[in-house]
């Protein structure tokens, strides 16, 4: 019981302080909002040409979640690299806390920041493009958003643990950013892709999260998609926890924890 309480305290305190680190930097904060808006604007300008209000709603929701994917894919792996640069990665590792408990709050804090960009993108679509996204089931919509963000945090966690072992592992996040836009069905329906691509897409939690968000907004039942999204997110968390210990052992063997 004490161990569980201690783990929860590490997670909550880590999340809060890591959120503070991200939030106190005005430059980072502005970038986290402006960057997704730039891509959302591009998408909305394209979809506006169709003249279909439904298409614009589809794009507005997709662009909102797209920003959270970008924020997580690039920031999560970069966050651990920053820890290496500032010399705190070795201190996290040399503490008796399990590596997973030290890293997960970092990506959870980034997911929280991603929520800002999601809301900002929806407001941007409403104010600048006049897109009113109808939300038929607000409760289900909120649940879908939260589960999607939580699963994104665990996906980011899986990405970030590779940085513990590989000094250039942060590039993996950048590599996944644009393919993720397509694979997760943010802007293009998945039916347009070959079956094997759809299989890959179905292994990514945001694909299910995106479906759940759209379903909740339109009034359809999102719960199956929410459940699969949550389960996949949990699966990534378990895989990340397992890999974090294995990769940490490898990092100790190869001496890659330090900057040089």
């Amino acid at each position, binding site marked *: 019981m004490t161990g569980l309480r201690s783990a929860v305290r590490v997670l909550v305190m*880590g999340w809060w302080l890591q959120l503070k680190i991200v939030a106190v930097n005005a430059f980072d904060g502005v970038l986290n909002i402006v960057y997704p808006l730039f891509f959302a604007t591009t998408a909305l300008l394209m979809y506006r040409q169709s003249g279909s209000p439904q298409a614009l709603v589809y794009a507005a929701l997709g662009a909102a979640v797209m920003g959270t994917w970008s924020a997580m894919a690039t920031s999560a792996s970069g966050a651990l690299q920053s820890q290496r640069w*500032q*010399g705190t990665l070795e201190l996290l590792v040399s503490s008796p*806390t399990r590596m997973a408990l030290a890293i997960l709050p970092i990506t959870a804090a980034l997911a929280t920041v991603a929520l800002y960009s999601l809301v900002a993108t929806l407001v941007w679509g409403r104010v600048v493009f006049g897109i009113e996204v109808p939300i038929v089931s607000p409760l289900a919509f909120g649940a879908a958003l939260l589960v999607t963000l939580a699963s994104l945090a665990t996906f980011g966690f899986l990405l970030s643990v590779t940085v513990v072992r590989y000094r250039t592992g942060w590039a993996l996040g950048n590599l996944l950013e644009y393919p993720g836009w397509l694979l997760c069905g943010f802007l293009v329906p998945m039916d347009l892709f070959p079956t094997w691509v759809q299989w890959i897409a179905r292994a990514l939690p945001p694909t299910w999260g995106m479906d759940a968000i759209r379903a909740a907004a339109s009034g359809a039942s999102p719960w199956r998609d929410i459940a699969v999204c949550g389960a996949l997110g949990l699966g990534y968390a378990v895989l990340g926890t397992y890999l974090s210990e294995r990769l940490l052992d490898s990092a100790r063997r190869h001496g890659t924890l330090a900057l040089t």
Partner: protein
Amino acid sequence: MSILEARDLRRSFTSTSGMLRRHRKETEAVKGVTFDIERGEVFGLLGPNGAGKTTTIKMLITLLLPTSGSASILGYDVVDDAREVRRRIGYVFGGDRGLYERLSALDNLRYFAELYAVPAREQKARIGELLELVGLSGREGERVEGFSRGMRQRLHIARGLLHDPDLLFLDEPSLGIDPVGARELRQTIASLRTQGKTILLTTHYMFEADELCDRIAVIRQGELVAEGTPAQLKQRVTAGSVLEIDTFGGVQDRLERVLAVPHVRSATVDVRAQAETLVVALDSGSDVTAAVLAALDGIPLGRVVAREPTLEDAYVELVSS
């Protein structure tokens, strides 16, 4: 039982080079290091850059796996019982890094207190005590990015002591600190010593090691070349005497001639602002000042002083022999 036992510790690193044809190169950074640290002792590990001090420490604090050999802390193996070892040690390194700059000193300490499982009800009092110890009381609410290097280093020490470790590793803690900051840091370490803390300290500053350490080991090119109390190490050269001669150019070319003088054990050049000081270690009872000066014939000379050897002389002789 010793608090730390290291037996024949070795660590190699493999590096690769080349674009198309990859060449692998193996470097043995630590070549069979053996030593013990007793409870309540301040143990100094001295050596030049690249001698293997930090690699040795990183194996002991579980950040690196030894290639071979073994080490245990309070009976826990650093490879097999890494988590148990981590609970019992603190690690502080020198320089600017290792703190969350955008957080306050207090938040930094609170975070690491959680990571080291300091009970919530004890955290406030413990952090308060440590801030007092390192002289940062009243500054805990400020962000670390505004701290001087000396203040950061003292905060590092507070962080390393949060969980009241049995053994504290201080890896060049005075690196880059101004003399006043370094003095304050030494006072902090000295007060830890009087509290009975066991410390492994690495430093380049001999007076620091002389002042703080109960025992010292000198490491050179990955091997321990000497071990003993500061007095014992000094004795290695007190069997003789030291001659210091200020010169003004060209002394490097005459080193061979100086070393060829009978009863000269070693000769090194210490480059200072304008002069180069030749430091010559001599055998006991020998008076070869005239012969050494003759070997320097033709070079402008300044002050010539014969003196007792210091720990620094012992160190220089050990690492340069």
